[in-house]
């Protein structure tokens, strides 16, 4: 949704299509998964078989898509102006060089000559200009990525190999606006021009989809798979496989079973329990990526609109920094890392994740908030929050007891785990939590209206932090009529906003990093967004079928850089030379069957039991 950002939990919305999906997941685990994948693998040509992002694809129309699965597809089939290298720095793609004017307002991109869309039409700067202009000028086209180009004055293509972007204010991150996966994909003008009128209804599902990238999309079935053919003439290198299949799995356990039985080559994103179980498997490579996101607690301290009108039903006491700090003091982040993520995470502090070291900020020694329940109790006592008969403190100003709602994502095990711990710790400082499990859409709707006290939230970000920092600015607050807000916690701070503008116009990396650090310091002290941890991203690869899908080298702790798997990983993956076909079921297999059987008994039994009630006839 922004410069290299995606709300990863937004994506998981689809994953909670509850009953059917779980049954389907169990069935997949037991039955022959990835039938589409294995069919094509049987032929001479090679196929890379990967798990589709858990979110699936919401739409193949890149102007409207929000789900991670869709971004993965676009990264494969549509070009961007820049690519990103391993460290997250912009590199060449459609543009092979770029310059900026002295006043920092005009950017000139040199577009490569001689590229052709998959239908043979030449790919020129005009395509890029048309796409970016459409997003700048058309509200529907700007649905997904409009915020990335809001500062663009004009985009023009004086000739086929030159693209000129003029910005209203100097903008440091122009080279991040069109990057694979998290930026704006460039679409072929000759295909899309006729669709611009009714963009909202255009599904973009005529196969093969005309595009340019390492792959061409040849088939897509919702909730099932997306199939690709390699683009042998791709400018940044020829893909190592002839075909690629992204297979949809409703449950990661089902995908793991497919991987173990050799029906799948790569899974991006397993949970710590699965990761540790798979480490013992000799035919699999398990790697940890440095986390590119955070999981944490948000506090509704002051929900209001841009004009300062109070909205929502947040608990008034949360406006008090003392109470917020007490909550921070009562959160043992190390225990959360150890127990909820099985140790495979970094204790959170700064707002930006460790995957992009240039932006990482840590509180100065002595300024960290420790885990100290006694201190939390003490500052609450001192501030006049007296305990009632039931052990729950009362807000001295409003007279309301400190009973707070904590919204968590219904499809997220981390959230459920963390909520158990938070409930326990906060109980010991006299704050009662009421856990509300909500779907992503219900949670977002409550968030926008301010109808919440505490929320578990998580974001991931690409190398440019502008979007993630932007959702904490006053400009992100909703209007009085409730629209146009993409605030994350109704945070609004003048100093923060000034620094936000400053970093956006700072072209020196170190200086910009310093400004971004000051912003994170403001957030840390406000205790409104409390970072719990940065989870390491966990991947599994079959070593007997694929090599090279993992990009970069591990550091001393064995941590790999954040993987741009959807672009570089799938492009650089090659078939393993010694191909072993017979893959053995590991010891986990029997447990899998038993577990599946137990689940089936409960689910099917429950279904039958409910059904039975409804199917009863008159018995005398």
């Amino acid at each position: 949704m922004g410069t290299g950002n995606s709300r990863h939990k937004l994506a998981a919305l689809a994953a909670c299509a509850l009953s059917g999906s779980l049954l389907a997941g169990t069935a997949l685990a037991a039955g022959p998964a990835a039938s589409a994948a294995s069919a094509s693998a049987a032929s001479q040509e090679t196929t890379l078989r990967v798990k589709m992002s858990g979110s699936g694809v919401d739409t193949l129309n890149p102007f409207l898509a929000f789900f991670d699965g869709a971004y993965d597809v676009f990264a494969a089939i549509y070009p961007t102006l820049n690519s990103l290298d391993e460290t997250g720095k912009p590199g060449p793609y459609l543009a092979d060089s770029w310059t900026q004017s002295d006043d920092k307002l005009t950017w000139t991109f040199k577009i490569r000559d001689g590229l052709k869309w998959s239908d043979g039409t030449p790919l020129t700067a005009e395509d890029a200009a048309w796409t970016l202009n459409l997003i700048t000028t058309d509200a529907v086209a700007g649905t997904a990525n409009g915020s990335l180009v809001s500062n663009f004055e004009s985009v023009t293509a004086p000739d086929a190999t030159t693209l000129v972007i003029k910005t209203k204010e100097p903008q440091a991150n122009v080279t991040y606006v069109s990057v694979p996966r998290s930026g704006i994909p460039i679409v072929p003008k000759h295909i899309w021009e006729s669709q611009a009128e009714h963009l909202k209804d255009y599904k973009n599902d005529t196969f093969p989809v005309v595009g340019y990238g390492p792959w061409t999309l040849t088939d897509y079935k919702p909730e099932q798979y997306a199939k690709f053919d390699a683009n042998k003439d791709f400018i940044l290198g020829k893909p190592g496989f002839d075909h690629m299949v992204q297979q949809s799995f409703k449950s990661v356990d089902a995908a793991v079973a497919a991987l173990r039985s050799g029906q799948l080559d790569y899974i991006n994103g397993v949970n710590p329990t699965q990761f540790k179980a798979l480490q013992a498997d000799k035919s699999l490579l398990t790697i940890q990526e440095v986390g590119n996101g955070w999981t944490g607690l948000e506090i509704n301290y002051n929900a209001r609109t841009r004009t300062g009108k109070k909205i929502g039903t947040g608990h008034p006491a949360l406006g008090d920094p003392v109470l917020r700090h007490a909550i921070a003091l009562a959160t043992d982040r190390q225990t959360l890392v150890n127990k909820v993520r099985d140790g495979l995470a970094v204790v959170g502090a700064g707002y930006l994740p460790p995957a992009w070291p240039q932006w990482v900020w840590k509180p100065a020694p002595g300024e960290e908030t420790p885990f100290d329940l006694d201190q939390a109790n003490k500052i609450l006592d001192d501030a006049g929050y007296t305990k009632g008969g039931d052990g729950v403190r009362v807000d001295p100003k409003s007279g309301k007891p400190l009973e707070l709602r904590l919204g968590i994502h219904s499809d997220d095990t981390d959230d459920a785990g963390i909520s158990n711990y938070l409930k326990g710790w906060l109980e010991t400082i006299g704050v009662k939590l009421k856990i509300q499990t909500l779907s992503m859409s219900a949670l977002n709707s409550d968030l926008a209206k301010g109808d919440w006290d505490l929320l578990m939230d998580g974001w991931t970000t690409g190398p440019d932090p502008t979007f993630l920092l932007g959702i904490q600015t006053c400009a992100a607050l909703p209007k009085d009529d409730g629209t146009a807000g993409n605030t994350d916690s109704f945070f609004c701070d003048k100093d923060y906003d000034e620094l936000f503008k400053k970093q956006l116009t700072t072209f020196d990396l170190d200086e910009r990093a310093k400004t971004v650090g000051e912003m994170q310091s403001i957030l840390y002290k406000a205790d409104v967004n409390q970072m719990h941890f940065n989870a390491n991203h966990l991947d599994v690869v079959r070593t007997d079928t694929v090599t090279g899908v993992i990009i970069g080298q591990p550091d001393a702790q064995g941590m790999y850089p954040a993987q741009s798997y959807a672009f570089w990983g799938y492009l650089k993956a090659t078939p393993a030379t010694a191909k072993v076909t017979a893959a053995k079921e590991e010891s986990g297999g029997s447990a899998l069957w038993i577990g599946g059987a137990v689940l089936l008994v409960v689910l099917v039994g429950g279904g039958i039991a409910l059904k039975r009630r409804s199917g009863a006839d008159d018995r005398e």
Partner: protein
Amino acid sequence: MSAATNAPAALDVPRHHAFSRFCRAFAKRPAGLAGLGLLVAFGVLALVAPLFIGDDQLNVIKVDGPQLSPPVDGYPLGTDQAGRSVLLLVIWGSRESLSIGLIATALTVVLGSAVGLLAGHYQGWIGKILMHVTDWFIALPSLPLAISLSAVLGQGAASITIAIAVTSWTATARLVRAQTLAVEARPFIERAKVLGAGNTQIMIRHVLPNVMPLILVSSTLTVASAILSEATLTFLGLGDPTSVTWGSMLQAAFLGGAVTAGAWWYLMPPGIAILIVVLGFTLVGRAVEHVLNPRMVGR
């Protein structure tokens, strides 16, 4: 069953006799006794659980067991991801699972019997409307309805109980209506009417006692399905994530990757506990049905 023995007894004695006769007949059914034994065992465990399970064993911030460990000393059924004993969780989970099952059944029986009785007694437009409403509920797919209901009511034990009751009262209603129709066709009802009995008296004093055995049988079977429904709905994430029930244990195990990890000690106990209790109720229900239903005697 010898019907002649209670002929000379006093007014309240036949009922007493009927009960002891029922008990004797029930005692001759080993499957029913076995089911009853299972239920009593689980019931006692659930009731005495607070004596030996407390916050120290259940609160994730206080436990210190190994994480997701197979059965070891001190943890006969292993531990969950937070380091809590699975055995204690299963025992504790029986409290909420059983109480939701029983309360939902009570609601189901009360609602279903009331609707069935009224619809059977007032056969005019009231009965028609009630039966049309019942038919409408029967036509609705139960699981999606239960899911949407508990989603609307907010998650937690209360809303799951209501969701189960709302989706499962229809069978009882139809059953009771049919029996009411049969009973009201008998001559003694006509006699009561002639003697001046009002609607309420006929329904409560004459029809209800005759319908009661059927309700009893139906309710024992309803408990079994209510417990399964509870586990299903909690497994689907509609329960309170901080409370311990069998369904929520299965959910935590499943979503936490216990299947891949081969953590059978985490997945199996709650599943088997559900199996045993549902089996217990079904066995008891079948036995009661056999005893009370004269047509099934000898089968």
